[in-house]
């Protein structure tokens, strides 16, 4: 009896996993379909990818997604590392307040963040575009990078820093020669998370990009809400997906190197 129950449970689990994956897999598969129709397989073809590659607005959106993501990652890594040091190594009045404040960007509904940024730019008269998008992404991504870097810093054995100091390295040199190399995988993982958060972002970007600036998610949304489903969109979605997955795999590898 028990064994049957276990088998049913396993079968149910399998079904649910299929539920989670089938739509995505079908979306990817049909981006290679040599047909306009999404359900009948006509043959393998890269034509939709070719039309994507020939579209300059797609390239522009891709380029924007990348540089916005890279800038977000860079700034978040630096600020995240500095803040992680403060949170892990120091205690002071108001620390728990700061701690809560750093979690706000993660907890608050994204759309409220998006609209608040828009109002901020409206009020201050800053024109909307790539810069306003990046600013919003960084404000959000710092908290994410912080979580990852902080976790890496918590288990850090400080006696190596003391060893460095006993050998003549002052605080700054100790950081660059000893501490940073050791926490680097965590810092990079934090940066990759920040990149992913920025790369996948839709809502905040939609509110702060203005009429002339587009990223991949914005383009996907525009195509989906206007034209509905199409194989080109499948192709675009697949490309976006592949980048996200590659980043995630690297992140996973980096977190595994923490012995």
């Amino acid at each position, binding site marked *: 009896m028990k064994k049957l129950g276990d088998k049913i449970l396993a079968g149910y689990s399998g079904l649910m996993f299929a539920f989670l994956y089938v739509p995505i897999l079908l979306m990817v598969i049909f981006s290679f379909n040599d047909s306009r129709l999404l359900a009948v397989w006509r043959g393998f073809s890269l034509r939709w990818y070719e039309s994507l590659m020939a579209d300059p607005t797609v390239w522009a959106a891709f380029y924007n997604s990348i540089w916005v993501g890279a800038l977000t990652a860079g700034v978040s890594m630096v600020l995240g590392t500095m803040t992680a040091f403060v949170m892990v190594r120091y205690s002071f009045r108001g620390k728990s307040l700061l701690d809560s404040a750093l979690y706000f960007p993660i907890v608050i509904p994204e*759309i409220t963040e998006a609209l608040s940024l828009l109002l901020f730019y409206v009020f201050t008269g800053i024109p909307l575009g790539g810069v306003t998008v990046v600013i919003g992404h960084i404000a959000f991504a710092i908290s994410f990078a912080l979580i990852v870097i902080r976790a890496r810093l918590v288990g850090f054995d400080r006696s190596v820093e003391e060893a460095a100091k006993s050998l003549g390295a002052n605080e700054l040199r100790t950081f660059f020669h000893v501490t940073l190399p050791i926490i680097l995988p965590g810092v990079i993982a934090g940066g990759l998370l920040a990149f992913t958060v920025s790369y996948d972002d839709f809502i905040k970007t939609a509110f702060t990009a203005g009429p002339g600036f587009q990223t991949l998610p914005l383009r996907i949304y525009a195509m989906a809400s206007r034209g*509905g*489903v199409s194989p080109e969109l499948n192709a675009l979605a697949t490309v976006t997906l592949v980048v996200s997955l590659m*980043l995630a795999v690297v992140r996973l590898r980096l977190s595994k190197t923490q012995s």
Partner: protein
Amino acid sequence: MRRSPKTNAGLLASPTVVYLAIFFFAPFAIVLLYSFGMIDIFRQLRPVFTFEYYFEFFSSVVPGVFARSLLMAFATTVACLLLGYPMAYHIAVKSVRRKETLLLLVIIPFWVSFLLRTYALMTILDVNGIINVMLSNLGLISKPLSLIYNPQAVLLGMVYNYLPFMILPLYASMEKLDKSLLEAAGSLGAGPMRSFLRVTLPLTRSGIGAGSILVFVPAVGEFIIPQLLGGTESFMVGNLIWTLFLKARNLWFGSAVSIILIALVILIIGLYMKYISRGEEMAI
């Protein structure tokens, strides 16, 4: 004398603090000001203070939209809980050899954005989507089924996207479960149903709570899923805010609605934190 640690901490923290103060907290202050009508259409600060935009909230259809959002978020949470609990249980308790792989399989969808996942559902449910095209090619239907642009599609999309958010905390609390407790219950005469209700369920309470919050709170303000999969009866708070800000340019009423949403979220989270701390007290 050496530099005090407090100045060090201050120096290191200040860039982030300043950045967030300007680009995260100040914007929310501005939303607040707009909601009370203190900023006018010429972007000037006025010494005016009015509740009119909040009153407008109550006299319009907006409360209905909030109610619908709360209902949808609730339904999503319950569905995710019912569907996800057995899955989490299977991975945490029953699967021994493949646990890590299965866990990875739960995490991978996290790496795909909501937008892409929702679009993937669109390709299946749409008028020109996989189901309709397949069924019509097989001659089973003469005109396409409207599987999309209705509340059911939205619920499906919500559950599809939020399910991993429920499974992971459940898994975490089940992982910590001491299997020998179940064996002890069994040896004391409790059948599998009783063991589950009396032992497993209460001990996974924290996972259920965490998963529910992780699903419910963001679900209330969700935009993409109702926008892409829903029709007019599925209009939720996220869509409302989008329309107010980006279409109607009604920054004042939109701000009031947003403040109410934030207040709602803070209330829910506050209740949840109270619930947890009370649970801890009871445990002691």
